[in-house]
């Protein structure tokens, strides 16, 4: 059986070394095969997964992050993966600063408190950095989550609908952060359609019917 993955793989540039990959991966949730034998390789640069709601974009990201088990196939991902889901993953009861500090310390990147302060400033949260996150607006919480891009530099970054709940200024900040990202990092962005990020992407895939198919690659 010819899998969509095979075509996705051939879509990658010949010299591009994959930094993370799902191979022949099938994910079954609630007795439904959400992803069927997909083969997704992430090389350095920005890759966009595009598809309508419910098409399996989030599941693909969660599979790469190790948050859903594979019914079959394999997952080859380095340990330093930053996964930002479509909710901000911040613990209520802690401030934005404390949440960022926890994630950074957990990865063993302690010490650089100034980096957290700079990230909070950059994302426009200087005045709200020490408020418990449950008292912040949804957009502010999203900004706080995205500040992790600055405090936890990782080889592989997985962003699920990162533009959701962002105002124009914050969306611009995110695009700027993605443009500035180290060229060695593999960034996968799942979105149901965002022209600006599509323009930045080196590779673009469509997700639907449990399959991933290549849509475009920048030469």
């Amino acid at each position: 059986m010819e899998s969509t993955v095979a075509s996705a793989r051939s879509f990658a540039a010949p010299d591009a070394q994959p930094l993370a990959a799902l191979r022949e991966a099938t994910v079954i949730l609630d007795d439904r095969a959400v992803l069927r034998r997909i083969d997704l390789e992430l090389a350095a640069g920005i890759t966009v997964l595009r598809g309508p709601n419910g098409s399996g974009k989030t599941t693909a990201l969660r599979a790469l992050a190790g948050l859903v088990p594979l019914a079959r196939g394999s997952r080859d991902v380095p340990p330093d993966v930053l996964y930002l889901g479509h909710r901000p993953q911040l613990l209520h009861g802690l401030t934005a600063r404390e949440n960022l500090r926890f994630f950074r310390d957990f990865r063993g990147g302690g010490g650089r408190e100034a980096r957290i302060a700079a990230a909070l400033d950059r994302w426009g949260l200087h005045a709200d950095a020490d408020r418990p996150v449950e008292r912040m607006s949804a957009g502010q919480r999203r900004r706080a989550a995205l500040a992790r891009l600055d405090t936890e530099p990782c080889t592989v970054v997985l962003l699920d609908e990162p533009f959701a709940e962002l105002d124009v200024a914050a969306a611009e900040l995110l695009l700027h952060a993605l443009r500035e990202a180290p060229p060695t990092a593999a960034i996968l962005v799942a979105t149901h359609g965002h022209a600006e990020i599509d323009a930045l992407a080196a590779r673009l895939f469509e997700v639907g019917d449990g399959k991933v198919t290549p849509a475009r690659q920048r030469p």
Partner: protein
Amino acid sequence: MLRRVLLVAGREARADRRQADGLVAAITFMAVLVLLLSLVVGPHVARERGVAPALFWVALLFAAVITAQRSFERELADDALDGVLALPGGRDALYAGKLLAIAGSLAAVALIGGLLQLVFLDLDVALPGHLAIAAALGVAALPPIVVLDVVLTLRLRARAALVPILALPVLLPQLVAGTNAVTAAIAGDEPTAVAWSLLILAFGVIYTVLGLTIVPTAIE
């Protein structure tokens, strides 16, 4: 690994301090039960051998359920749990970190509930050191199974009812051991207090190993 476990425990303790509703609910529950017992059965019956210790452990078990459920509700609120599970070593550190933090909260509940019982029921404790050790061991041995059950029922709507139903049969021997250890410590029966305390310790070790084995793979 230890550093990560302590980070999870510290994160939990900090959030508990700001959102103390779970801890306050557990302490209130314990205090109300202690008061009710002496009012319902009368102080003479409540002071009878084994009655106060049994109530103490049953109340502490439900306090553990309340505290653990509150802890994981907070994790689910903004998918904070996903944030930890996606970290390298996050699955392994989460369970042990939660155990430490919840045991700390339970220690506070046990201290307040125990003192209330001693005062309201005017209990004389012959071996206070043994009582403290038995209580400390019981406090450490309750969370492993409770947290395991909360994790196993995490995505079920009926988890509030399921956790005590799943935990009670498993923890019954430990509740018996705890009751007998405390009763013996109050009565001054040192060998019995030590023997039952060792049994609590054994339960605690077994349950912790079980949880450390199951939770990292079971949590979704």
